[in-house]
């Protein structure tokens, strides 16, 4: 299945030049998607602790399962206002 990746701020810059989506096996979880992204960009690893993930616009748990066509957003600590 194919999952679209939306990364923001420093994470967007870190993933610049990499594909905008991920090909994952059926039944893959949010954690599996993050692991695949870490293999693509190892510099992501230390940022796992401060990154929140959203599936289709809602905050997701690592155990949440993904579906074909989902959007997974990578959200670093926010800085609005």
């Amino acid at each position, binding site marked *: 299945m194919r999952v679209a990746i*939306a990364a*923001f*701020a*420093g994470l*967007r810059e870190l993933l610049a030049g990499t594909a905008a989506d991920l090909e994952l096996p059926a039944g893959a979880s*949010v*954690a599996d998607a*993050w692991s695949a992204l870490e293999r693509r960009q190892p510099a992501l690893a230390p940022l*796992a*602790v*401060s*990154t*929140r*993930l*959203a599936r289709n*616009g*809602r*905050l*997701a*748990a*690592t155990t949440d399962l993904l579906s074909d066509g989902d959007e997974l*957003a990578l*959200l*670093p*600590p*926010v*800085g*609005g*206002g």
Partner: protein
Amino acid sequence: MFAIVRTPIDPVRLDASVRDDLFGAVVSFLGIVRERADDGRLVHGLEYEAYDTMALAEFETIAGEAYRRFGDVRLTIVHRVGRLNVGEIAVAVVVGSPHRGDAFDACEYAIDEVKSRAPIWKKELYADGDERWKSNACGHRESAV
């Protein structure tokens, strides 16, 4: 009214969005780009970006929370994204209410929550050409990974 905008915020126009003949108070908070970073470095401007759809949903959730906490309040929350210069308005929270106490409380609540929860990011652009993504002190919530 909730919006992420790419052009300058006109606070006078936002005032109308919270008016009601039953409301005797309008309180506005404007967040302005300032010349000094928290560590004292000279700032030329800020670059904001947002996850628009999720940020708008968060604004709406925060306004709903304010309504439940403070009673009859109407909120407008607008955040600008893109490159902003010193002195420009980055965010506006405007609250209408029958009385000023609830309007002040709801306004403070809403801006605090926007800063800690809304998926919006800023990069500080320093006068010396350096730049850095800067998170709010309250912008670190539990991680999902």
